[in-house]
């Protein structure tokens, strides 16, 4: 039979070369599929709750930008000069599964909490810089390792400390940890 076959078996069939494999499905199908999965208990509602928490977390972290400006240019009274601690550390702030974002009516309270903590760091001469990250993200390359959610990093600080442990103590006292968030502390390699 093979001698009658005009082409290599592994090659594609030339007739189908220009045929698109994907076709646009009917728009209403998505809702039907989701309804069916929901009715079977195959979708959790966790995502909706998390999304709300996510938004509020971003609002709460709006303090990042303003706080740093305060530290840099308003010269908080009593601020110590920089670089008395020797090393620069990055505090990476994640929402994490236990992070409780501020409910909307207490947002101002939460912002004040972060502000108070940051001003304390500025007075100690610890804050070098910090940024809140926007919640939009793109992911390219390989998927993240299990347990890391794309977009899970909310923001970061660069602070001055004498050791990794000392930086960890600073992080542990942050309102972010108090509210169930996670902070990863890493030394900036160039400061070694």
């Amino acid at each position, binding site marked *: 039979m*093979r001698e009658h076959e005009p082409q290599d078996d592994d090659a*594609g069939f030339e007739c*189908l070369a220009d*045929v698109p*494999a994907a076709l646009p499905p*009917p728009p209403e*199908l998505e809702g039907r599929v989701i309804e069916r999965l929901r009715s079977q208990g195959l979708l959790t509602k*966790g995502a909706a709750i998390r999304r709300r928490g996510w938004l509020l977390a971003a609002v709460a972290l709006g303090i990042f930008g303003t706080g740093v400006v305060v530290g840099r240019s308003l010269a908080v009274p009593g601020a110590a000069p920089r670089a008395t601690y020797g090393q620069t550390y990055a505090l990476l702030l994640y929402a994490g599964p236990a992070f409780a974002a501020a409910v909307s009516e207490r947002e101002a309270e939460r912002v004040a909490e972060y502000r108070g903590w940051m001003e304390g760091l500025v007075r100690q001469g610890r804050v070098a810089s910090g940024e809140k990250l926007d919640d939009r993200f793109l992911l390219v390359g390989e998927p993240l390792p299990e347990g890391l959610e794309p977009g899970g990093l909310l923001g970061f600080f660069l602070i001055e400390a004498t050791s990794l442990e000392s930086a960890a103590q600073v992080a542990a006292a942050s309102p972010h940890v108090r509210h169930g968030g996670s902070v990863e502390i890493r030394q900036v390699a160039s400061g070694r």
Partner: protein
Amino acid sequence: VIESIESIEAALARFRRDRGERSFRRLYRLVTPRLWGLALRLSGDRGRAEELVQETWLRAVRGLGGFEDRARFTTWSSGILVRCWWELRRDRSDHHDPWQEEEAIEPRERRIVERLDLERALLAVAPGYRAIVLLHDLYGHTHEEIARLLAIEVGTSKSQLARGRRALRSLLEAGEPGGSDTTDTDTTDSEAMA
């Protein structure tokens, strides 16, 4: 923008972590166009294609624990779809032989692609051959995968691919596949394939 750039693997990893509706929608939108193309071409019928895609997602989400990362999710999910289709055919008592031409048995299948000769020709090829040609030549499955999916021998997949291609080619050369049983064509269906 995120949906169009995020890889299927990243969307899948996210959905596996939270099993949430939002994550599922991202994954669904990345994978379904391909499933839909396959379902429509295998079944030739929009209603049946919808059933197939729904059933495929149901089984895929249920069976996600059994999905191994070494496999591609598109391959795995289209495999589920093919098995659903194969089961559906087997359960219908009037379609015993998948290698048998079905000139007049499924006239509805031909309605949807009236103006596209190639798609029409595909639907005029016996279902078994059609599945193999589609899976191998359009959806990139290997003979080993096809053999597993359709519960046939690898050698059968190879030989039937050659036959399916010949059948398709001769239908295309004849120019008028499947006769003219398209009198009550639903034009919206045929446009949907374009």
